[in-house]
């Protein structure tokens, strides 16, 4: 998905590194990576270290790092192009749920145009770009971490670890705790939903699923708009 932008901006000095936040590791990410044929580093973060290090709660999120290794924009909603799923049409005979799902997806705000325009400006102008933030603004805009959210991170890490040990029911308990402590962390819950066994249902196990939670906050708020 980022390959086209890499081709455009790498000659102008930009490196792109993509990281798959996937407890399932390389095997689940591989089909996407092989289809995208990236020439840039494309990494696998099986333990979700990047979410914890930077404070990422949904994907796709982008972080800008300058030549000196200084973060100049903290994690923000980052789309290189408008996703195809946003043009999805409601097929004839769609169920009520399918209609709701497609309508929600169409309402997501991705704003790729503004993201790419800002990125291009930073690539060309560097620290003179108004999009390169001062250190105090980078820190201030990163996510607060109150005690409950730190605890949620610990439960999520335990959940992943237990899942890898095949202690699936114990893992679910910790994913439930992570969800209870930080219900707006989409990374935790979407990952936990994906790890369900065939035949298990997110609503039954976690009392939530993507559509229900998106409808609760309003699909237009799912990807927080970037404050340029």
């Amino acid at each position, binding site marked *: 998905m980022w390959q086209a932008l890499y081709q455009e901006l790498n000659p102008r000095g930009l490196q792109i590194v993509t990281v798959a936040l996937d407890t399932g590791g390389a095997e689940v990410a591989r089909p996407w990576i092989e289809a995208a044929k990236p020439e840039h580093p494309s990494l696998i973060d099986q333990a979700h270290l990047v979410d*914890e290090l930077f404070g990422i709660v949904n994907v796709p999120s982008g972080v800008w790092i300058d030549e000196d290794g200084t973060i100049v924009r903290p994690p923000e909603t980052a789309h290189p192009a408008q996703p195809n799923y946003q043009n999805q049409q409601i097929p004839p005979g769609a169920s009520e749920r399918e209609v709701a799902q497609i309508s929600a997806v169409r309402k997501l705000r991705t704003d790729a145009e503004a993201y790419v325009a800002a990125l291009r400006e930073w690539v060309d102008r560097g620290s003179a770009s108004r999009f390169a933030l001062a250190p105090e603004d980078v820190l201030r805009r990163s996510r607060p971490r109150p005690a409950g959210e730190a605890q949620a991170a610990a439960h999520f890490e335990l959940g992943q670890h237990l899942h890898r040990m095949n202690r699936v029911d114990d893992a679910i308990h910790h994913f439930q705790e992570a969800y209870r402590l930080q219900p707006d962390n989409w990374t935790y819950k979407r990952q936990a939903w994906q790890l369900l066994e065939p035949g298990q249902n997110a609503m039954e196990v976690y009392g939530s699923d993507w559509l229900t939670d998106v409808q609760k906050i309003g699909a237009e708020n799912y990807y927080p708009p970037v404050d340029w």
Partner: protein
Amino acid sequence: MILETLEIDPAQLARRTGWEIKPEGACKGERCVPLPATGDQRTNARVLAGRLGMPLVHDEPSGLWCLGPEFGGRALVDVRAPDLVLPDIDGREFHLRSLRGSKVLLVAWASW
């Protein structure tokens, strides 16, 4: 950080959290937090969790513990990018630091 016992391996702690156990206490960058002067209390997860403001969560069935990230502040406490080391799909390790000298866009995505 997953723990099998409450005794912390200082090397693992440093790798995972950036906190190093030194004679003056637990230190990260310029900052040092005092620890008990001697003995195994210095590497006890409960003591460290209390002093550093980290949650310590237990999983009874497996006996495992998890020491979570520091709370009270923000996810980013330093604008210097951490030295992230992650593998690609073929297991080859990549160091984010190797791109020093270029602008970098780091993108998190997922298959889910």
